[in-house]
């Protein structure tokens, strides 16, 4: 059955009310892209359900009409994962932002998907917190974090979104509702939740999430250490980790990034520094104090030219502002930039950074490096001027070459931003045909009709084959009396 646009709009309006259906081309422009603005597609309609029941209604309607749909949280993703599908439905979850339960005793919080990341920590402060902390945490939604398996500066020590989601109520692409995971650890059965987290909206849409929160550290020490070169700073990172220190965060900024961000913030980073390392230690009072001395000593032996230790929370915030402001500050020195998200084994950082510098020179473009050094997750910012003919294309070629370099050194094409539309063409370099086939098996188990966020994550669109006949175990087989041949 082929649905007409008016069937679709009437159906959607009947489910969520006409005031929550956006179909006018002007109004739809706000939904054409996510945080990666270079891709734009207008959907047939954007729909803003207010409850799980309405989400079920919308997904069932799409299934009945054979209309593809894309779920969107806050739209802050950086891989085009929430890019709409033309003539499809954009399922916007921003109205579903209730915190449903705060269970301090069992350290868990139950939320709707539109709740912002930072709101979870606020709901359990000051004694507990929610560790995954993407830079966009003030605006980004938990539903989006779950779809992308978001990380953040503190995941070297604390882990990623996938380590903190206990359960998800998920609307599958055929409109049925399944509870993945559960309120308890080690739920019997497959870890479908583990496969769902990070699936970029291709397996279904979560309407309720149970998150684990943990005791907030009683002590935090933040140090900014300055070095003559990125290589020296990267070597200091390896030395810190090799000494058995597990900082809450270790962030590296190169000279270019410092030059862009420091003047905006005025935190006192020396403008002539070749690189800065921002190290945050958190934990018990006893452990933090000892580790701080150790980190300072290790920085010194690796040619550190100066150190600033935050004396109070205000200074800590100032030191972090340079790091967090680095992306927006790039706008001051370059009209456009393209952020990559490749990962390399941490010990390969010095040589990969050298390689990136060489590639930048080769392509005649500037690249700033601001990244999570603890886990080797690079965020090279390829700077270009889209107004100059051919420069955007050159930036893209350079960005691809950087990802190739990450793969050559045993890394990954994306550490936390996701594949989306932006990096799907690189998937075939990281995974072979058999690997992709296994991904497709999972996809087809959840979404045999390919309606949930089609065209993302997988390098080439594929249809699911025939569903293997529904096998039912014979009661005699179950009882162990008969065998199956």
């Amino acid at each position, binding site marked *: 059955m082929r649905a007409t646009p008016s069937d679709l709009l009437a159906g959607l309006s009947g489910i969520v009310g006409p005031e929550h259906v956006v179909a006018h081309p002007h109004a739809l422009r706000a939904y054409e892209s996510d945080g990666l603005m270079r891709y734009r597609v207008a959907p047939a309609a954007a729909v803003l359900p207010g409850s799980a029941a309405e989400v079920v209604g919308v997904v069932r309607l799409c299934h009945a009409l054979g209309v593809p749909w894309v779920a969107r949280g806050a739209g802050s993703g950086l891989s085009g994962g929430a890019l709409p599908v033309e003539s499809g439905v954009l399922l916007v979850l921003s109205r579903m932002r209730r915190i449903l339960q705060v269970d301090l005793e069992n350290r868990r919080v139950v939320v709707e998907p539109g709740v912002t990341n930072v709101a979870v920590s606020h709901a359990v402060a000051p004694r507990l917190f929610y560790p995954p902390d993407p830079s966009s945490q003030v605006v980004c939604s938990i539903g989006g974090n779950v779809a992308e398996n978001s990380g953040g500066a503190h995941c070297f020590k604390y882990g990623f979104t996938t380590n903190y989601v206990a359960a998800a109520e998920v609307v599958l692409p055929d409109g049925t509702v399944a509870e993945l995971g559960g309120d308890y650890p080690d739920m019997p*059965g497959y870890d*479908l939740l583990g496969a769902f987290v990070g699936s970029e909206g291709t397996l279904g849409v979560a309407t309720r999430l149970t998150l684990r929160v943990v005791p907030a550290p009683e002590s935090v020490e933040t140090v900014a250490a300055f070095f003559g070169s990125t290589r020296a700073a990267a070597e200091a990172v390896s030395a810190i980790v090799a000494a*058995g220190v597990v900082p809450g965060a270790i962030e590296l900024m190169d000279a270019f990034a410092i030059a862009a961000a420091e003047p905006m913030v005025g935190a006192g980073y020396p403008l002539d520094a070749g690189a800065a390392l921002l190290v945050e230690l958190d934990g018990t009072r006893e452990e933090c104090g000892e580790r701080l001395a150790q980190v300072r000593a290790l920085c010194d032996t690796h040619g550190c030219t100066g150190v600033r230790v935050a004396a109070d929370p205000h200074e800590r915030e100032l030191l972090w502002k340079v790091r967090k402001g680095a992306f927006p500050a790039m706008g001051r020195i370059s009209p456009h930039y393209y952020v990559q998200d490749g990962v390399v084994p941490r010990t390969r950082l010095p040589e990969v950074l050298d390689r990136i510098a060489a590639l930048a020179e080769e392509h005649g473009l500037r690249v700033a490096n601001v990244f999570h050094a603890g886990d080797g997750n690079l965020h090279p910012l390829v700077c270009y001027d889209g107004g100059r003919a051919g420069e955007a294309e050159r930036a893209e070629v350079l960005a691809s070459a950087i990802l190739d370099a990450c793969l050559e050194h045993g890394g990954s094409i994306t550490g936390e931003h*996701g594949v989306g539309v932006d990096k799907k063409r690189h*998937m075939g370099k990281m995974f072979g045909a058999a690997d992709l086939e296994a991904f497709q098996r999972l996809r087809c188990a*959840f979404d045999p009709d390919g309606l949930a966020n089609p065209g993302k994550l997988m390098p080439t669109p594929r249809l699911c084959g025939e569903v293997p006949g529904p096998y039912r175990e014979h009661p005699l087989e179950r009882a162990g009396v008969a065998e199956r041949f």
Partner: protein
Amino acid sequence: MVRERPADGAAAAAVLADAAQEGRRVRPLGGGTKRGWGAVVPEPEVELSTAALDAIVAYDPGDLTAVLGAGLPLARAQEAFAEHGQALALDPPDGAGAATIGGVVASGDSGPWRHRHGAARDLVLGATVALPDGTLATTGSRVIKNVAGYDLAKLYAGSLGTLGTLVEVVVRLHPRPAGTATVVARGADPALVSAGAAALAAAPLELEALDVRWSGEDGAVLARAGGEAAPRLAARVARLLGEAGLDVEAPVADDEALWAAQRAGQRAAPGGMTLRVSGEPSRLADVLTAAREVGASDAVGRAAVGLTWIRLPAGQASAMGAAPAELRARLAPLRVVVQDAPDAVRAAVDVWGVAEGPALELMRRVKARFDPARACNPGVFAGGI
């Protein structure tokens, strides 16, 4: 039954593919320490041993990662990591060194370190699995942070080999704590023990492990502090447990035997039974009380995680037969899985306790996509998968 011992992953995939084509069933075999897990099924035609896949394929101490052959005994891997002051933070009972990394991951087993570092699924960065279509499929990566592709390693973890056979896993490592100190605090009331554990679980102490044990009319909280500051942290732990009304013993620095005993409590005595209960930490006292009432000899638990292992002694067939249903009824909606029990007992009870519903239906669809011929360890898993 034929025992296959493939020399590499491709050969393992060929064994599965042949079996799938010819309608034979394959049981994967690592160290053979968990043969009695899952539902009772007829003897399969093929046993696929990972014994030859026992290499440390790669170990980069500076990156805190390692690639391990599935047949590598966990204990051997830990020895290699310990030389560099590191560890895989996964310490389940290891059958006197026989348990393999593949078996531990495929069974989703864990030990006291679970408290600090999570389960196998949290420590596995990637995996290569032999599939019954004859291919070798790799998921994840060798770096600690990666979101490219579906995280199939989590799906394989705990799947008991029903989707394919693990041939290689990539794991994240952690520095071994410079020192440890364990505080044991006793109490004769499940509520008191549970309250002591809850006080520690809420505190920002970054404990390596936080367990309880219960036996007869006596229980205890065990808390392990780690790092250079372990003795000072242990003193704080002792104070908190004292305030909770427990009878606190002096901290023990040489504490390995205490934790070995906790691990041992996760396994049944020969002929006995172990039931694993998953629940909220706040239900711990109820779980310990229910354990007493179904005739358990003892129990150990990860207090802040919400896992408890309840043991019934050998020779009490009727108590063992009744215990799963009785515990499920008393503790509903908590989950109770029969972990170890004699075959006769397991054949007569619902081992998994998974209700029909959309999630189970989805699990069957996953199984059908990965293993349409049902060659991979069929019938042992939840819902007859």
